[in-house]
């Protein structure tokens, strides 16, 4: 088996006092391979979102480190460097509120591409054939296609999009910067069943289309079952769910 795309070692989150620490996430190892989709399930407050936020680099871990595609991505007390920021991107629960307000989606995506300097790191980004486009405009169009988003909607602001359209726009924004890993934090929980199903198709197709991996935090058992593997989080401890379809990667709970 090839080297894992995402390698997290001993990541944990604790806060509170030294004498009475509150542990949101116990030290966890996590490996994700290219082309793989992994679901994270668990009850509210179990630590799913904490795990997702650490992998996304939105929250710094208390211990451990995460590397992506062989690059040190983030670690204890260290936020991701801008140089490798594009490697991990996310799809939020409520994209309508999470995309910059009052700005057309296309503009937000352009700015993200501009800031992350994807063009300069194209060799490493290697985001699959669909994204080998030269210009930012082409890149955005390709990303919209992958996200099943009507390109006409790119010129609307997040407020002018419906819930499902906004989620697709968020996927397009994430894909456009050429990530290797996409972390989706309950992306379908605010949608009705039909829209959710359509979005799930777009999400689950991502590893195949971009050659990366997908970490999907969800409450939806049916959606989780469509992923390659399922991890269960309970009281801050991550374990592979029984009957995991592709065993062999190590998950450790200390």
């Amino acid at each position, binding site marked *: 088996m090839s080297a894992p795309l995402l390698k997290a070692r001993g990541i944990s989150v604790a*806060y*509170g*006092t030294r004498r009475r620490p509150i542990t949101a996430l116990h030290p966890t190892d996590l490996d994700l391979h290219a082309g793989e989709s992994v679901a994270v399930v668990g009850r509210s407050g179990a630590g799913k979102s904490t795990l997702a936020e650490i992998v*996304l*680099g*939105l929250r710094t871990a208390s211990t451990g480190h995460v590397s992506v595609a062989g690059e040190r991505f983030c670690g204890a007390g260290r*936020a*991701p460097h*801008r140089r490798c*920021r*594009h490697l991990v*991107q*996310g799809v*939020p629960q*409520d994209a*309508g*509120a*999470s*995309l*910059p*307000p*009052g*700005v057309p989606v296309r*503009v*937000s995506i*352009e*700015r*993200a591409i*501009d*800031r*992350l300097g994807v063009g300069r790191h194209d060799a490493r980004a290697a985001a699959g054939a669909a994204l080998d486009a030269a210009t930012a405009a082409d890149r955005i169009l390709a990303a919209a296609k992958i996200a099943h988003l009507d390109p006409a909607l790119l010129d609307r602001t*997040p*407020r002018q999009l419906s*819930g499902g359209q906004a989620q697709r726009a968020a996927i397009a*924004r*994430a894909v456009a*910067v050429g990530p290797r890993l996409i972390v989706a934090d309950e992306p379908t929980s*605010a949608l009705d069943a039909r829209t959710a199903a359509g979005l799930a198709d777009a999400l689950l197709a991502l590893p195949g289309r971009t050659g990366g991996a997908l970490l999907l935090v969800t409450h939806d058992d049916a959606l989780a079952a469509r992923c390659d593997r399922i991890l269960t989080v309970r009281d801050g401890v991550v374990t592979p769910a029984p009957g995991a379809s592709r065993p062999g990667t190590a998950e450790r709970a200390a």
Partner: protein
Amino acid sequence: MRTSDRRALISRILAGLGLLGIVGALPWLSQRDPALSVLRARYSELEPTPEAIAAVRAELGLEGGPVAISARWWEGVLHGDLGTSWVSGAPVGPGVWHAVGVSATLTVLALLVSFLVAAALVAPVLRAIARDRPVRGSGPVGVAMTALPEFLLASGLLVIVAVHLQWLPPYGWTGFGSAVLPALALGIPGGGLFGRLLGDALAGSSRETWVQVWCLSGAPRRVVLAAVLRRALASVVDQVGLIFIGVLGGAVAVEQVFAIPGLGRYLLGAANSQDLPALQAGVLAMAAAAVVIGVAASATRLWLLGGPLPAGAVSPPPERPHGDRLAQWTFGVGCALLALLLVLGLPRDPFEIVHERLAAPSWELPFGADASGRDLLARVAHGALGTLVPALGIVVAAVAVGLVLAFVPNAVRGPIEVANATPPIIAGVIIAALFGPTVGGAAVAVLWVSWPPLASHAVALVEEAKAMPHVKWLPLAGVRPFEVMVRHVVPVVAPALARHGMLRLPGVALALASLGFLGLGAQPPAPEWGRLLAEGIDYVERAPWTTAAPAVALILISVIAVAAASLQGSNFRWPLAPRRAATSAAPVAPREPEPADAP
């Protein structure tokens, strides 16, 4: 202990130690060299040679840096030696003790008055709860009670009761009769505020679910009432502590108006003569009183509830449907009257001495003339500028300070508490003693007490803004933390904070006026409202209009201040996400088409 808590504790300790150090080092902080003036005053035959000055410096305990001076002073204090007056050369101790005794008596009487006032304000609310009638917060009477600052109330009582009706002696400290008016002037505003807070807290508590549960399970009305009272008292006791610390500052003005030889007047005298050892002793006594009040408040709360309350533990008072509209109207009409005053008076000349001295109001001189024969309408209108323009500057500075400090919330907790517990008049006295009485010094003193509420608000707003989903997800698009703050958090927070600051403008103007009234701010002949009132009050018997014109202007700004405060209460939440709508999918960000942040 959590890191943030530990940081806050360290910040508090540092702020407290810093304050103590500054009190000790006051003589060093004073920019002028007191040795020369003391030399001239005491040994006029001596030449001011460097040796002679050095000898005086040694005698005054001025050699060494600020730390040495502060340490030496504190050592003396711990031995019971408060130092020697620079003016009289006599020990400071006995004078301070006498002043403290007088002030303590006055304060006890004032507390009595304020408790009576508060009880009178709270009684209707309690009765409504007892009879299970719909409960509202404190009414307009409570608002009116808190509208007037002490110096204005004291002047009014002096003019009407002592001079006009001649029921009580106008000044001095000769017996019970002479203590009545000062106690009223000092007790009514504090008691009004206390009663208002308690009334609102009672109304809020009485709507909590547990009250219904107790009533349904047949608890006697008396028991329920006692429990509601206890709950409400516990929630306001900290603020009551701050109110009474504020009374200490008000005492300076009241003692000055009624010529009472208390601690406030002692401080003012020390400031005016720049007698720093006396000032240090007075400030120490004030600080000790403030600490006693603070400890008493904490002890009371501990006894009532057993520990500090988490934020948001107190239910807000029920909303009054017409209260806000009344406040809006009052605010609007007040501002319109102020504008009218400016339009009529600004074209006139406030310095020209052309009219008859103390001329009565006429068609030519709508407000009459002052003791020098200057047009009072012109002086009051220009005084509006002299008061409001510095106040505006203070508000802008306070908003800026609050905004900057909001990004280090734990580090500023200690300074916020210390500054919050400093009455503006005391800050003004200290600054005037150090640098002489100027508008700038008064402005700095008022700024010192104006920034904490804005900083607290800014901390809350920044936290709220950072939690907005689109701000939280910005790092994914490669936006750096500093850029997140400057481009996305500050633009959302600043307008709300500026609005809050503008609503505080009238209150800031009043604080400035109170310093001007005491002679700690603008100097003659500059027109400034507090100053104008102080000038007019000397002629109140012969020409009451000299007092009336600035007093009316000050009452106007007081009314605007109170109306603004109630508007602020009702609007406190809408600057950012309304909590009720937080679950909807609508973004919480600004609704207007946003000025696109430049790429």
